[in-house]
């Protein structure tokens, strides 16, 4: 499943980043968001969600959330 369906406050392990955009992939890498790492959705909103990756929090939008498979 992807992050859109993730339950809030539950820690998941990223399985795969599903994107063709090389740059986006590299960007996510530099945030510490790549397969094998843990990720937690703090809250969902219509437009996107807030996730916690290693002590830092990010606001990501739905397209990105869909690309992150956990």
């Amino acid at each position, binding site marked *: 499943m992807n992050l859109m369906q993730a339950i809030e406050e539950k820690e998941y392990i990223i399985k795969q980043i599903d994107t063709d955009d090389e740059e986006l*992939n*590299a*960007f996510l890498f*530099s945030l*510490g968001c790549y397969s094998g790492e843990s990720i937690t959705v703090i809250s969902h*909103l219509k437009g996107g969600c807030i996730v916690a990756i290693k*002590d830092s*929090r990010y606001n*990501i*939008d739905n397209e990105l959330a869909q690309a992150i498979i956990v």
Partner: protein
Amino acid sequence: MSKTCVYCVNENSLPHRDSGEKLVVLAGNPNVGKSTLFNALTGLNQHTGNWSGKTVATAFGTYTHNAQKYTLVDVPGCYSLKAHSAEEVCAGDAICSPGADAVVVVCDAGAIERNLNLVLQICEAVSNVVVCINLADEAAKNGIKVDTTVLQKELGVPVVKINARKKNGFEALFESLAHNQAKRHIAVSYGTCLEKAVRIVQCALKGLPLFANDRYIALRLLENDNRMWQKIERLCNNDALKYASIVSARHRALNFLFDYAIEENDISDIIAINIVRTAGRISRAAVCTRADNRSYAHKITDKILTGKYTGFAIMLVLLSVVFYITLKGANYPSALLSDLLLSFEVPLYKFLFALNLPDFVCNMIAFGGYRVLAWVVAVMLPPMAIFFPLFTILEDVGYLPRVAFNLDKAFKKCNACGKQALTTCMGFGCNAAAVTGARIIDSPRERLIAIMTNAFIPCNGKFPSLICLICVFFTSSQSPNLGSAVILSLLVVIGVMASMLASKILSKTLLKGVPSSFALELPPFRRAQIGQILVRSLLNRTIFVLFRAAVVAFPSGIIIWLVSNLTLGGEPLIQYLVSFLDPLGKVMGLDGTMLSAFLLGIPANEIILPIALMMYTSGGVLTSNESFLSIGSILCANGWTITTAICAVVFFLMHWPCSTTLMTIQKESGSFKWSAVSFLLPTLFGMAACIAINLISKLFLL
């Protein structure tokens, strides 16, 4: 995606340095305190703020230590050297600029692992790196401790702990900058196959005057990084043979890798995974984390601030509170200042007259230039000087990215970038700054939309006029109350919605496209340095407004006075403009004078109302006591009704951007066409709204 950055340092645009002067580049992740450190060292006043992407252009400053002069370069924050947006390209170029004697990588002690990614990349690219661990105080509160000796041993570069805010630990930093020679840096290993491939390309690079380590360049070339190829092409200008040899070396390397079942597309992933693994390993060795419950409180706060319903409610309440404080706080000083300043008008005239200046000149200076200046200072300065610090405090606490989060759904719906919510927020401070700030938006299409719709956001210079009109016409009591704050908040909401509507229209017509995805860091809440902010931005604003009053308001006062008093064919010159604009003004519920004031006020929004008052009073109507009430009486005496006031407020909200903003737009978009669109779009909106309001009021009220 266009990746050229016209604003940043390259080989040619570095500042002039004396011989022996050292160039130090401040790099690092966003929001780690680079600009704070820059300010602390150079004594300059770069903007700092608690969100990622505050700095979008490089800044230069100097400082001297032990008789050694240093030029410091503050660059925009970036997460990796692989450029993502224009301002990150800028950062990458500055870090790899050939003249740099040292690169200081500022790190957030609370997020060492992520910061190390960048450190490792920079270590790969250049040879004189100093790592600066900042924000240790904050990390310590969260139970995170960083061991610098371990880091230093692992990285092979000097690691110093500083506190940029409190200016602690700078001695060690100076020390390591002074004695910084090329050391044995850590090199992330990518496995035997890839290493061999890198060496093949590295060999081909020999002999070129490289701007960064050959290993780094070879890696980028293997990844087929476009910008790197361009740079190499420039380095090999005229030497087509050399260029061809590099290309063929890369081919050989790829063939070699292919034999070991590594495909071209895999290279980036291998590099990235090795870097993050190394960063993870080092950070596990150097960082010790104690479980804590502080982040829990932060989480709850965030949940409320970004909640479905609570988020918007809090936003509106905060907005109203800020406006209420501004209104209340500005009321008394405004009245005082206008009484005081305008009472000098006649003495000034007498004084000038006593100097034996011609009567004409005395009149022009005292009742022209000085009067507009007095009005600008009295009516405009207090609200601006109060609103701006309040806004800065919200920014420093870290509220802005939360607002962006609340709004980004709405912007997405308009086919614009969610990050536009950030530029919208910046627009409240200054439209021109927001236009520059739009560089944080990656896609050119979305950046243009953000730039062109920013004029809808009432800037700091528009608020006082809005406040003044609201107090005069829309509140029963003369002194501002909560009601006026709510009206003002509503106006702001209308402005924001208009900018969204305009974004939507643009994205459906001139700039078609789908919004791209983005991730925005939510910074931790930080305690704002309220005292310092108050003093600094109050002072800054006051000086800024006074300066503008002197260079813009005074001359325009003189010009208005001249055109109102010089006659041609029996009529004052200004009358020609006023009569020409009068029909249009009437249709819009205003009048020719007000429209002329808008036109003549293009240098700065804060002079529009004073100019209008000047034009109204230069006919001879002069009241002695110019408080809000008498501004009302001046306007009423000139035929203003409640409809006029509503139309004026609406047109204040939506008309062309000021000249500074226009020039910034021209610079950022680089196209006359887009500047014209930015001029026309809000103007047409405003005119349409005014005409509609006027018609409705004619139909129903009369």
